[in-house]
């Protein structure tokens, strides 16, 4: 059982450009991702949206392995700024975990 933390997303979301919630959960982004990692990118942002911070941090490596190539974005039917969202998340981790 994972406890949903609605506030987490507010911490990650530094600006309006973060729009992971616009996702309609069709799965196209993950299916086209050249990295072929199941978490990337859709389910990673599910964790963020549900506020499962622990799960997010467990997957730091995956988050940094995103190529930012925007293949997902070119295919996204909901205009989710996936690459930008990834950067927001990295920025959060840089501060919170790496204390950069």
């Amino acid at each position, binding site marked *: 059982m994972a406890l949903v933390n609605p506030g987490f997303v507010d911490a990650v979301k530094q600006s309006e450009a973060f729009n992971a919630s616009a996702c309609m959960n069709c799965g196209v982004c993950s299916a086209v991702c*050249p*990295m072929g990692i199941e978490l990337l990118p859709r389910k990673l942002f599910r964790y963020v949206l549900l506020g499962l911070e622990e799960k997010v941090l467990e997957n730091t490596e995956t988050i940094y*392995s995103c190529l930012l190539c925007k*293949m997902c974005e070119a295919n996204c039917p909901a205009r989710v700024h996936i690459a930008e969202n*990834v*950067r927001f998340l990295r*920025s959060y981790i840089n501060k919170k*975990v790496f204390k*950069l």
Partner: protein
Amino acid sequence: MPLPTGDTIGILADNLRMRNSVLPISAKSATSWARGLHLPRGAKTVLYTGMMYQLIPYIAAMSKAQAGIEDSFLANFVKLGRQVNKVINISAFMAMPPKSMRETYNRLLVNIALLLQRAGVQFGYLYEDELYSGALVYDLGADDVLKAHARKVYGTFQKYGVKNVITVDPHTTNMLRSVYPTLLDGYDLNVKSYLEVLVERNIEPKNRLDREVVIHDSCVYARYENVLNEQRTLLKNAGVTVKEPAYSGKFTLCCGGPAESLYPKKARARAEARVKQLKEVARNCVTMCPICYVNLQKAAGGEIELADISSYLVQAYC
């Protein structure tokens, strides 16, 4: 054991902060390509290399070392490295490419300058005052470091009274054209890729290249900056038969390069997958991004002939 992500980012960020480049190289190395071209220092319009082409050989050399690190005890060294790096520039030790390689890449910049001259563009160059754009730290989400750096870069442009910037690679184009405006107030530079400038100027070919090439679009050009037709127009006008691989244009497949600095092995696997697609279509492959170029080159294994687009264009148009 993976590379300690945070420390690597730290080293890169520190470098940018202290040495103005993620991978500092000497001013001499960075500007030597322009020798003999007699480009004016600064101008209203400048050719801005963003250091990318100059960095390629170093990146290549460094990632060779790093691929070894990825799964070894050396990984721990990186942790320590960040501390050391503050005093001694360790990344410079890690990476020293052979001279011939540096010359090859410098040649590409010369090509671009010649093409612009041929198209009648009046432009200058900032020489050792030119700074790296910060693309890598931007990608890694180190926004505060980037913002400070961007201010520095913009300051240099202002110092020289630059209004128009001609870029040579997609990453720098993206940073200067689309990212900086979101970071800096009053940012007013007009940024164009040299490919766009050449098409705008209706450059006329002198020689016909009867050749078949497969085109590998850069993700950043294709999906960030919508530079899709220019490269095709220039090649087709030169008589080149442009073949499209599986995944092309807007749906081009990443070369894996962006993973290079943190996950060299992953980067290599992506590059191999892409090379497989490219070689199905043609033996000659054209790239337009130094990162794609270097990353695919490593996976090419002699099965395809890679060339930067400027090498083709200079043959046809100059």
